């Protein structure tokens, strides 16, 4: 069973009027796991297979009701949840998954009917709609961090009221000094104890230390992958890395997430990952990508001769964690995000990555409604252009295909690639089919 067929299998499985029953049954995930094993050989790599298996197993676990499920927002330090052996659930990733199967519209419509404005980020709208439709595993608690994504705490608070479960917020100050670190660390310690109550047991420091070690392995393995990705042609495409969203948002602290990147590093190291034969343009990609089945990513990576050499999401920005001092080190991790600082920090990081990965241009995928990533994008573009990088701000939507005009978005990308072509003295406007490989 090929990967595309596997996705079709999932689509067919969840299609129809019994979607809620099928999506929320743990049996479904046992069946899916079997189908996944059959499809194993046709995944582009062992790493991507491992990642799919891990995410599906955890989703099945979340629906099993045997263990308290904790919904965590995208940037929350999920090590805390792994450290208590609870089941973390990332609704943002679930939203991306539903969109990839083509089920976004139903949930988005449901959210709109419930009063969620269309101006909101579609991740949040889709989560709200899917929750109301009963497509997501009921949480025992929700935790959201205030840093970066300012919509998440508000949404989670709403959903906590809907599910009648506790909501915890991690309040992250917009400065990274000692006081801020102590303040965040203290909240994390408190949260850890509060979440332990869900399982009605005493929190074990050893469990947390193990999660911290796993998170450090995740970090080290990702660093190794990132170093190997300096190779030209690019051994891993950015669109594949952006599919590892689950690991970034929900996996840090688990053994499995660390193993996926260890496997990926091995695959690259052994030369099992071949780059594109013709790599005309190397692109640094900022923010996320469309997860629904559209033409944009296929065009960029399969037809245009361009490759996403690296993406902002994969950058390791945080220092190693300390198993003996978990809360302050997790606080440092949270506070060190380069996007949660004055814009100069993001600019400097992007410049560093652009140089390191020897890219020809930078594309900022400006996801509709995401204030944290889009807010400063004009100034970011300006600063990067002044430093000599061609930049494209590409307006689009990661989940809501209705927010995208395919013709217009492809024209923008093509025009941008034409700018890069002129800079490299290529003939402008080739027929693109010859670039397929």
């Amino acid at each position, binding site marked *: 069973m090929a990967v595309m067929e596997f996705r079709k299998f999932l689509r067919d499985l969840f299609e129809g009027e019994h979607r809620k029953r099928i999506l929320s049954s743990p049996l479904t995930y046992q069946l899916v796991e079997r189908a996944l094993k059959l499809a194993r050989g046709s995944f582009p790599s062992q790493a991507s297979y491992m990642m799919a298996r891990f995410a599906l197993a955890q989703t099945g676990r979340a629906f099993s009701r045997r263990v308290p499920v904790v919904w965590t927002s995208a940037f929350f330090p999920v090590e805390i949840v792994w450290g208590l052996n609870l089941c973390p659930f990332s609704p943002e990733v679930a939203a991306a998954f539903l969109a990839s199967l083509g089920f976004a519209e139903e949930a988005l419509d449901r959210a709109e009917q419930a009063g969620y404005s269309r101006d909101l980020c579609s991740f949040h709208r889709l989560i709200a709609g899917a929750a109301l439709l009963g497509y997501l595993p009921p949480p025992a608690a929700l935790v959201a961090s205030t840093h970066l994504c300012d919509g998440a705490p508000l949404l989670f608070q709403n959903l906590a009221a809907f599910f009648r479960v506790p909501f915890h917020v991690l309040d992250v100050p917009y400065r990274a000094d000692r006081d801020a670190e102590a303040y965040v660390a203290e909240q994390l310690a408190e949260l850890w104890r509060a979440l332990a109550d869900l399982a009605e047991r005493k929190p074990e420091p050893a469990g947390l230390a193990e999660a911290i070690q796993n998170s450090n392995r995740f970090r080290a393995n990702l660093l190794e992958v990132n170093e190997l990705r300096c190779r030209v042609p690019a051994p891993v495409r950015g669109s594949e890395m952006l599919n590892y969203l689950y690991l970034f948002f929900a996996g840090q602290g688990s053994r499995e997430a660390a193993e996926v990147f260890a496997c990926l590093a091995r695959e690259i190291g052994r030369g099992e990952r071949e780059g594109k034969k013709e790599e005309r343009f190397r692109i640094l990609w900022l923010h996320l990508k469309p997860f629904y089945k559209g033409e944009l990513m296929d065009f960029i990576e399969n037809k245009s001769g361009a490759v996403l050499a690296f993406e902002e999401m994969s950058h390791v920005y945080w220092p190693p964690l300390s198993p003996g001092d978990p809360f302050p080190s997790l606080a440092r991790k949270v506070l060190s995000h380069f996007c949660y600082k004055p814009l100069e920090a993001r600019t400097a990081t992007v410049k560093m990555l652009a140089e390191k990965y020897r890219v020809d241009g930078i594309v900022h995928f400006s996801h509709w409604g995401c204030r944290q990533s889009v807010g400063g994008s004009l100034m970011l573009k300006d600063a990067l252009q002044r430093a000599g990088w061609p930049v494209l701000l590409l307006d689009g939507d990661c989940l809501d295909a209705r927010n995208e005009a395919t013709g*217009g978005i492809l*024209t923008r990308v*093509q*025009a941008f690639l*034409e700018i890069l072509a002129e800079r490299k003295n290529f003939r*402008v406007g080739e*027929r693109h089919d010859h670039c397929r490989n």
Partner: protein
Amino acid sequence: MITAGIDVGSLTTEAVLLQDREILAYSIVKTGSRARLAAEQAFEEVLEKAKIKFSDVSFVVATGYGRMGVPFASRQVTEITCHGRGAAFLSPRVRTVIDIGGQDSKVIRLDEQGNVVDFLMNDKCAAGTGRFLEVMAQALELPVTALGEAEREARRAAEISSMCTVFAESEVVSLIAQGVPRAEIIRGLHRAVAARTTALVSRLGLVPEVMMTGGVAKNPGVVSALSEKLGVEIFVPPEPQIVGALGAALLAR
């Protein structure tokens, strides 16, 4: 060597024939519902005007939103690159190209060599495009080509508060009913288009010299409203509608 550029836009399709950097002939036809037929028609017309055969043309480049549907083109290049190239050819000092077409508007930044270095494109909304003016002209019972001339008698501009094509149309209808002179309504509409375009230009940054291309550039009312709003002189080439096709013909090698 003779080359051709075909620009298949949403409302009109243009063809330009070029020989040794001299324009031999050009044609403009309505696109209609089938881009391919429009491209063929424009091409046949331009060949006829220049009295040459298809086989005399060495290369054809297609551009515009319908560029993929031109089977006889050897390459496709986006309208952004083509407008930039065409504008730089017509006036090498141009750094900002404002192109307002039938259904979208673009602002293009050129460097000293005439290469495109940045651009912005609005294709999400008809506000401020040729289509907007066409709908308003219908409400005013005028051909769209007469708007520029009809504005001349205006002593002031009527206030048009909505930029949404649908709402602006009903605003125009109610202004007519209130007895506001047509010329003043038209001036108001031209100012509204200029305001919308200025917002796009400001996002990219205004660098003179400025050239305006596309069908809307033929409307002197819009050009002067825009020039006033931006505070710069705007250069309009003799046939602003063919700049994209001209750029395509220049790139046809």
